[in-house]
């Protein structure tokens, strides 16, 4: 809320005295801090982010491994014995090669190896960095673009609204994954060249931009609706009546009022974007090897499902935990910033 609320407090001795109440942001924060589900989700997220950020430290100082380097003929020591990381089958006809399974030793192939002989746990941490980075960056870009489009369309109306709304309709007309796959296939083959700007096929900016773009209508539409409603509110009419410029009204009255909605969108979009990134990477059209993301690791584990299921299951579990935590946190933020939504939900 842009308006400042003033509360009247009464002292212990009955002498009335006035003080500024806590602002809406502080109230919201306090409310979230008293929500055990939100706190639990936030703690889980902080731990996941911290652990993933520490991936290079883990790889270098604990596991002593390069998670991007194939180690097909490598060996490791388990229970004092030197064993091959990829082991030739010896039973029956001796067909096939299996990577070693989880050792549950944090410093040595904790979750086992993948089919390239790489440490799955180290890749899981590196993959988490990539997935979280793409999810967060694309969510920010998506929410910023969506808010911009929604505010401009809703506030100015007329032809501007018509053009922007139809543009959103066009994007929305495509099944979201189909659009993402199409863009990925085209851009990952030759990269993106716009004038002097060249983004290579392996650059993480590509999946970030693709995912951000396809979800813009999901943010822009509700924001536009909110702006259409705000435009008719008294404080906006008063500002217009007082001769405030469009820029000032947009900045001081509209943006401040839609900001909580945008903020609510961020964790929700982040969860959605992480899942989309993982889906694209699983299909080999997202993050490109040898880079790792949780989606690419699931893809790596697809051919090991029968023998080494941990390779696919571990990133799947991480994705689920992160997405659930983000959604729960998003719900809590929404309840805190928009109490009416909670009331509507209760009704």
């Amino acid at each position, binding site marked *: 809320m842009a308006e400042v609320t003033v509360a009247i407090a009464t002292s212990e001795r009955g002498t009335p005295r006035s003080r500024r109440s806590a602002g809406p942001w502080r109230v919201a924060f306090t409310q979230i801090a008293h929500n055990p589900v939100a706190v639990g989700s936030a703690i889980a997220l902080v731990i996941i982010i911290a652990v993933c950020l520490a991936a290079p430290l883990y790889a270098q100082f604990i596991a002593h491994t390069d998670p991007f380097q194939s180690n097909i003929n490598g060996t490791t020591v388990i229970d004092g014995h030197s064993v091959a990381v990829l082991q030739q089958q010896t039973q029956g006809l001796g067909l*096939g090669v299996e990577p070693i399974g989880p050792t549950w030793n944090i410093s040595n192939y904790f979750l086992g190896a993948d*089919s390239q002989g790489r440490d799955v746990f180290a890749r899981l941490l590196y993959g988490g960095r990539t997935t979280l980075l793409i999810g967060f960056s694309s969510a920010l870009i998506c929410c910023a673009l969506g808010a911009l489009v929604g505010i401009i369309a809703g506030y100015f109306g007329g032809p501007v609204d018509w053009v922007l709304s139809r543009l959103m309709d066009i994007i929305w007309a495509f099944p979201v994954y189909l659009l993402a796959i199409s863009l990925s296939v085209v851009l990952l083959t030759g990269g993106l060249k716009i004038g002097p700007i060249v983004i290579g096929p392996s650059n993480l900016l590509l999946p970030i931009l693709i995912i951000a773009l396809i979800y813009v209508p999901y943010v822009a539409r509700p924001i536009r609706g909110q702006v259409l409603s705000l435009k008719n509110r008294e404080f906006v009419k008063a500002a217009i009546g007082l001769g405030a410029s469009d820029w000032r009204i947009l900045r001081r009255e509209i943006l401040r009022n839609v900001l909580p909605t945008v903020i609510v969108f961020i964790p929700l979009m982040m969860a959605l974007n992480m899942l989309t990134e993982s889906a694209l990477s699983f299909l080999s059209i997202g993050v490109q090897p040898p880079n790792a993301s949780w989606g690419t690791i699931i893809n790596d584990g697809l051919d090991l499902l029968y023998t080494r299921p941990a390779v696919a299951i571990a990133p799947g579990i991480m994705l689920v935990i992160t997405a659930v935590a983000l959604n729960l946190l998003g719900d809590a933020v929404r309840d805190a910033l928009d109490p009416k939504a909670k009331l509507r939900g209760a009704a």
Partner: protein
Amino acid sequence: MRTITKTLVSVIAAASLLVLAACSSDSSTDSGGGSGGQHTGGTLHLTAQSAGGTLDPQVNYTLQYWQLYQGTYDGLLTYARVGGKKSEDIVPDLATAMPKVSADGKTYTFQLRKGITFSNGKAVTTADVVASFQRLFKVSSPNAGSWYNVIVGADACLKTPASCTLNGGVVADASTNTITFNLTQADPEFEAQLAMPFASVLPAGTKAKDEGTTPIPTTGPYYFASYSPNKALVMKRNTHFKSWSAEAAPVGYPNEIDETFGLTAEAEVTAIENGQADWMYDTPPSDRLSEISSKYASQTHVTPLTALWYLALNTNIAPFNNEKARQAINWAIDRSAVVKLYGGTSLASPACTILPPDFPGHADFCDYTKNGGNTWTAADVDKAKQLIQQSGTAGQSVGVVVQNDSVNKGIGLYLVSLLNQLGYKATLKALSNNIQYNYIQNTGNHVQMSLTQWYQDYPAASDFLRVLLSCASFHPNSDSSINIAGYCNTGLDAQMAKADDEGLTDPTAADAAWGEIDKAYMGESPLVPLFNPKLIDFTSNRVSNYQFSDQYYMLVDQLWLK
């Protein structure tokens, strides 16, 4: 045959053939026919992830259907339809005997068997043979221009296929029931090429277009009853068939054979384990190998193939337009690692030469192995780094293009890792199997390094060396440029022509010459041989009498069903 994923081995011909041989006398003219005795009957269920494309034997170029053509179509000659080394012998099929060849090697005369009918009941005549060879050009058969272009009149047919007559090239004499082929030049591989499915004899009235899903009448023990590429292919017993040769046209055992499409490889394995299918065309996925090799060892058949997995290095663009850079890759590749990625030592052997072991012309040598020797023992990364420094190509970008299945992609990841280790900046491009092979052939795509495979069409050194590396196989900016390395060495081309000529008179000397040519190519390093693969056939427990032909792989219609 590049699209194939399987080839050779020797499994000894089993009791069934003895039974068949007993009831069908010698290989020339006897009737044979009849039933296969106590092992006859039942429906054999095959399964594949997807259909193999057109059913037209003069157009289709996949092992998937070549394996089925052995029990359906016949040419004048064929490879003996038996297991083991004898399967590499060319034997008369619709011809009564091997051809009479003129002294200059330019004329081949065949006597056509009498009394053979197509599955539609019409007799096979010399006119059908002539029409079939005309049609081969009219439908632009894949190798019309490279195998059958030696026939007189073929040039005109290649220019204007629709009006192809092969006038003077294929001459029929209905009164003597003979067919004469006149060639523009002697070709030591002409008989082998006549034994290929492209040279199948079809009814003269067959439309001069790719028949696609419409079955064409057959001469063999089965005919194609129906074909739906999204569902299934059904083969039924040809009631007009009577075996005329145990070697060329043995009686089939199952009454019916069907191949269903759509299951994943994982599901195919499960279906066979459960007895819902009898054989899978596709290679079992890597995570099921230990299961089938331990629990189902008696149902798993592993045989080495005359095939090569290799890297093609584009010799026309940096960095591999530099010979030292190419040799560096040959030194650096850890073949044992690549073999592991393929499935281990039970499924592949490291390769040093372009010609596979036990193949005509193969010579034992290994130019790129640490500490020397005739077999590959270890990579020499230090030497490779040294060569790269000398070549001045260190630090350059290298794009590696592979197919996007798990094995190819796994090898691609290893290559990227190795190239980065050698000082290049490597990236991986994994393309769909349907696209990759044409993509890497086209010089317009500037592919620097690609992973691909070659499986023999027929046992001849030229089928590897000339096809993969001759100047004639290099067509810039074309999707059909099988010389993927784009390497052209006119001196070695001349040596190949000489070896061809020698093959007509002195096959042993020719083989030695081909071995030298292989060595010369390896010195130039346009290719990096990786390994020679083996094939896994996984069959159900109701199947027996498994036989493997080096040419046709598992003899499908010779299987017995419980």
